[in-house]
């Protein structure tokens, strides 16, 4: 009984990758919300995107090995992430120029 459960857990399959993706997603989510530093928020967003990519690649490998469409989507996500990072930096810098802070607690221009 114990050996059976151990072998199920130990032998890596799709589920393992999905769980890994979920863990990464939760870590990214955590970082996105709790960080006080804008740059760290950007980093957390990258982690979020990475976790999605892991899931895509895992599905491509286990479900759609002949067409690997998941990988193609991951390529798109990577490109979008690059654009997002560049724009994030640009926004950060123009923010920093207008109000010299990168502390999210101090940035509250959206207050309604």
């Amino acid at each position, binding site marked *: 009984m114990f050996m059976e459960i151990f072998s199920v857990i130990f032998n890596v399959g799709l589920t393992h990758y999905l769980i890994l993706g979920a863990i990464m997603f939760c870590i990214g*989510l955590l970082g*996105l*919300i*709790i*960080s006080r530093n804008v740059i760290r*928020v950007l980093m957390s967003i990258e982690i979020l995107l990475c976790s999605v990519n892991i899931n895509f690649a895992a599905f491509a490998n286990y479900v759609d090995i002949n067409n690997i469409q998941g990988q193609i989507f991951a390529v798109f996500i990577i490109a979008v992430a690059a654009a997002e990072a560049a724009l994030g930096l640009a926004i950060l810098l123009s923010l920093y120029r207008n109000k010299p802070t990168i502390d*999210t*607690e101090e*940035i*509250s*221009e*959206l*207050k*309604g």
Partner: protein
Amino acid sequence: MEFFVKNAGIIALLPLWVFLIIMFGQNLSIYENKKFTLWLTATSTFAGLICSSFILAWTMSHNEPYIQNFIWLEAGYIKLSVGVIVDNLSAMMLMVVTSVSLLIQIYSHEYMNKDEGYHRFFAYLNLFNFSMLGLVLSTNLFQTYIFWELVGVSSYLLIGFWFRRPSASSAATKAFIINRIGDCGLLLGILGFLFFSIIFWLNSSDVFLGFSSLPQAAKYVYAATGSTPMLYTIIAVLIFLGPVAKSAQFPLHTWLPDAMEGPTPISALIHAATMVAAGVYLIARVYPIFELSNDAMTIIAWTGAITAIMGATIAITQQDIKKALAYSTCSQLGFMVMAMGAGAYAAGLFHLMTHAYFKAMLFLCSGAVIHGLNNQQDMKYMGGLRKHMPAVAYTYLIGCLAISGIFLSGFWSKEEIFSGLLANNHIVLLIIALIVAGMTSFYMFRTYFLTFEGEYRGNEHPHNASKVITLPLIIFAIPSAIIGFILCGKFGLPSFDNFISPTHEIVEHSENFILPVISLIISLAGFGLAMVLYVDKYRDKLNINLDNFIQKVKPAYNFSTNLWYIDKSYYKLIDYMVIPVCKLMSNFDKYIVDGIVNLIALMTGFSGWVLRLFQNGNVQTYATILFGGLMLLTFVLTIYWLL
């Protein structure tokens, strides 16, 4: 030759390109030389003219029309398409439009040269050319409608060309609104027709509303509405409403005289030769629909007749040279529509063609006169201009002879109309037509004598028109003089009837010489009356006092100068009927509709106030709320999915 036919769409697209080039490039330095715009425009139109002549030659030898279609939009099972049709009718119209428009463009270069809106003018001109040629080349009613509207827009833009003048902008608005009434009718008619014939089109191999299957479709609709012939007549009359507005027929004609506020070349091109003729063209295109309903035909014929006589009576008393010509146009269009309605299909189109040339020329002559007198339009201040501008005077004379039906082209086309009316037993209409012909002759020569003969009564020093202006006039004089004779179909010459209506049964005219002789006599009588009344020499000799003469026929004279009181009654109608209703509706809108909207706005504002409490300005808090919601959603969905 096949090449030109297969690429006939290019003729229409060339002006569009030129329009875009001029419109988007008019601030570039290259446009400081105005010749660039002229060359661009004239070259494209000339290319169109060459293509059109090849197409015309092709249609001479081919009876089957060439049709090309592209599906433009699909909505369910309704497929609407655009395309190109090349048959005798469109070939003729192409020829007329491109040739008239080329000459007028050259003329405009001189006429508009000092104007600041030169490039805009040419851009609009090209837009008009595009829409008119597109209209001519349309394969189906739907496409026709699109270009119909485009033609209206370019007409609107050009009437209001000098938009800083209040009269011009209000004239443009008037033209637009009145055309809207007609277009509304046309659209309703097309939709009604489509509604009854939709099953026919689905089974047909032709495109929806295609002209080539229109006769069968009309028969189908006639059968479908068989129990209520009234319905079919209503549809036909609704379709006819489009031409009524566009061709300035009786109830909706009031915009055309006002449209003379636009530049004179525009009056010549759009409001005399081509666009107003589009109505007649449309009647010709959908002739199979009208043919089936006698009531509709009668309505058309009588509308034409009333317009013809009304235009003629008003034109007699006009002092403004362009207004006189405008009412003359009205009257001539009435002639054509009357011919169409009476069954003389080819005669109407023949008159359309001849009229296009001589009326364009007449307008250009009047433009030359106005230009030469520094924008003086009133004939009171003209006279004796033959000495100052002989070329203009002689071409104007040729035009007058042509329109009055004294031997030149108008004679032949009018003669066909008369014989067509006679052949279809419309004796009343024939009498009206003959009277109108006499009046035409009278008022045209009245304008001629007032303008070019006698003593000069104005203050400005008249100067002669330049070569660029006179050259198009002289070129125009040639077709105005001879085209009727060439195509009359008698004396072994080619017959316009055979060319234009190979599919329609040709009405055999009774070859009598009485009718032409009568019409000639009547025209000459009109000419004589004008000479007696308006040439000082003869008037003095016969001792006629014009003012006394007018006093004697005061009620009729007032009726005519007040434009049959139509405009005034329209204004009264609007004042006492439309505006109160509008006020009522406005109040409804203000207090009830707005009240509901304001209530909703208040509610939104309140909920916004509540939601604003969540907005503390920190983006991450928003992210928390967002992901919290996402988490809840995921949770619920997972539970729902697994259980």
